């Protein structure tokens, strides 16, 4: 049976159907602010006008599926093509542009600063070595062998420094954090101060007095490069090594459906911890599917829908209004508690029915896919040379066998409310990929049967790359025991709490290997 029965006590939000209304399905979109473009960021805001539920309930209470107000309350969104832009999209695009320009400015600014600092650092030792030759070449002592040996050492140390800086700092930026990266800023300031102090010393003691001892100058340059290498060591320790040792266990919960994961983090600032958590989120959490949450929202709406509060005492007084609202809500709570509610029954049976339906569709899907895969066979090298007729590349092979499983797959996706995650194109691409790599039907189906991590889906499905960090403590302060912060994205938020890993006191106990001795147990007796 394709049709989903609609004669229980509440309305359904069926999966979005692209294009036409199917005969058995009624989509009752009473919420006008829902966007239907699959590529846009989906904001599911439920604005339930207070008068509506009563109307909706009286319409549904009979066996009649289509209510009288269907024409007025349904928004005609299913008629849009994929390329139209709604008002929402325009607002979103302009917002994106503004944000990206702002962030890029900041990124370029930091990048130029870093390049300037790098150039300064590298050219300083060379300048120290070259300037005496330019300014007072006649007074300068000639460079002996020890001095020339130092040239080699300066050259190689500079080379090592160059490679090390390239390895540590010249990596593509992962993210734009809200505040400045404290350790990097500190290191930059330290390097700058260091180089400035060396220049000051050089300027005063060597340039002004025109020192002739060239070996001393070369040794001075060598000491500068050594110190720079040590600063680089400090940079490695502060930026990379310090957070490796796990110190805190953070618990990350998605606010909409309660998915929870636990991670171990080291000593990090809150913004860096948030970045690490977001990167884990994309790999570990199953993809966020708002279609699965609609049932509980409709149940919640139904709880309050049956009660309406009438204010019998028509008293105008502003200061009584707050008290009236408070007592109204209390009265509603009391009435709801007293009402004999059978919604748990409906939930139980509906869930059992859904489970059964999903299993049936899944069985059909598995059989259809297995049968489809038997229709194609990989050609061996020798056969390819012999019979060049009717040979297909993977894409064509995928297109050839796709129609036989398309219907079962589409029905399954619709039942599990995943149909907006996978487009026809992406399914065919995945099929071609599986065929190329000799994967079995089960391997092909794996990405459809279980909701995978967000990373697995197509790039435009990575809904939010714009995350907001909401925290009471300053985001550059370190993680502490009991830190709580929120990572908000458009559809949901991640609630993060951290706990310190306790100090572990371990003691040892030595067991002599020769002390393992055994005897047979004597026959025991029972006293009566």
């Amino acid at each position, binding site marked *: 049976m394709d049709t989903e029965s609609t004669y229980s006590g509440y309305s359904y939000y069926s999966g979005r159907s692209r294009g036409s209304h199917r005969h058995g399905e009624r989509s009752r979109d009473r919420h006008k602010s829902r966007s239907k473009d699959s590529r846009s960021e989906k904001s599911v805001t439920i604005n339930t006008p207070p008068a509506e539920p009563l109307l909706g309930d009286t319409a549904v209470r009979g066996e009649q599926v289509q209510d009288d107000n269907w024409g007025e309350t349904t928004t005609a969104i299913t008629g849009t093509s994929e390329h139209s832009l709604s008002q929402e999209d325009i607002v979103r695009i302009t917002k994106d542009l503004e944000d990206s320009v702002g962030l890029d400015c900041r990124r370029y600014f930091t990048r130029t600063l870093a390049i300037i600092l790098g150039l300064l650092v590298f050219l300083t030792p060379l300048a120290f070595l070259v300037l005496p030759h330019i300014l007072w070449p006649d007074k300068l002592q000639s460079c002996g062998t020890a001095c020339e040996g130092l040239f080699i050492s300066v050259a190689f140390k500079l080379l090592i420094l160059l490679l090390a800086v390239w390895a540590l700092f010249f990596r593509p930026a992962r993210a734009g954090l809200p505040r400045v990266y404290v350790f990097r800023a500190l290191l930059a300031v330290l390097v700058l101060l260091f180089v400035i102090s060396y220049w000051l010393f050089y300027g005063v003691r060597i340039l002004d007095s025109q020192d002739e001892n060239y070996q001393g100058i070369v040794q001075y340059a060598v000491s500068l490069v050594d110190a720079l290498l040590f600063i680089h060591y400090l940079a490695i320790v502060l930026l990379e090594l310090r957070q490796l040792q796990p110190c805190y266990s953070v618990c990350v919960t998605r606010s909409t459906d309660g998915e929870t994961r636990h991670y171990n983090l080291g000593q990090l600032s809150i913004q860096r911890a948030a970045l690490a958590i977001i990167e884990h989120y994309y790999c570990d959490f199953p993809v966020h599917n708002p279609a699965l949450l609609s049932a509980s929202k409709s149940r919640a709406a139904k709880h309050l829908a049956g009660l309406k509060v009438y204010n019998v005492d028509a008293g105008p007084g502003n200061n009584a209004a707050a008290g009236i609202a408070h007592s109204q809500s209390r009265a509603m709570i009391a009435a709801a508690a007293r009402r004999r509610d059978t919604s748990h029954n409906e939930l139980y049976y509906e869930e059992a029915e859904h489970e059964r339906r999903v299993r049936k569709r899944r069985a059909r899907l598995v059989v259809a896919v297995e049968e489809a895969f038997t229709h194609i066979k990989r050609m061996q090298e020798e056969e390819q040379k012999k019979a060049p007729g009717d040979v297909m590349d993977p894409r064509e092979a995928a297109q050839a066998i796709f129609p036989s499983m398309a219907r079962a797959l589409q029905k399954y996706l619709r039942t599990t409310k995943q149909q907006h995650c996978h487009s026809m194109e992406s399914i065919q691409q995945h099929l071609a990929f599986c065929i190329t790599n000799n994967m079995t039907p089960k391997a092909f189906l794996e990405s459809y049967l279980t909701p995978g991590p967000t990373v697995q889906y197509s790039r435009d499905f990575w809904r939010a790359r714009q995350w907001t960090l909401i925290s009471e403590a300053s985001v550059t302060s370190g993680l502490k025991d009991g830190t709580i912060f929120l990572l908000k994205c458009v559809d949901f938020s991640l609630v993060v709490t951290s706990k310190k890993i306790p100090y572990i006191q371990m003691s040892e106990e030595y067991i002599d290997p020769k002390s393992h001795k055994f005897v*047979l147990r*004597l*026959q*025991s*007796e*029972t*006293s*009566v």
Partner: protein
Amino acid sequence: MSFVPGQPVTAVVERVEIQKLQQGKNLILGFSIGGGIDQDPRQNPFSEDKSDKGIYVTRISPKGPADLAGLKMGDKIMHVNGWDMTMVTRDQARKKLTKKSEDVVRLLVTRKSLEEAVKHSKCSYPKH
């Protein structure tokens, strides 16, 4: 007292009647048993045949009801109140002995000295 599988067991038995003594909440008999089909028969110090899995008396508390009734250490219990004890687990034997509804147990026990006594008595009266 030897036990040949498949053949009926014959033994000379003595009937011992023990009155249970009320001690606190329990009715006690004053002896300990060992053996049983679920135990290792080679550990039994009292059995002649080390494959004998019967129930043996391993300890008698002095001046207890069993001691007064004439039970000796090393006796093999054959019957308890009519229930067979030659092919039971130790727990089953304990249960049959410690039934709360009975305050008298009548045991049929056998020991080597009985056999010898009978043999001796058989020999000392030559048939004419």
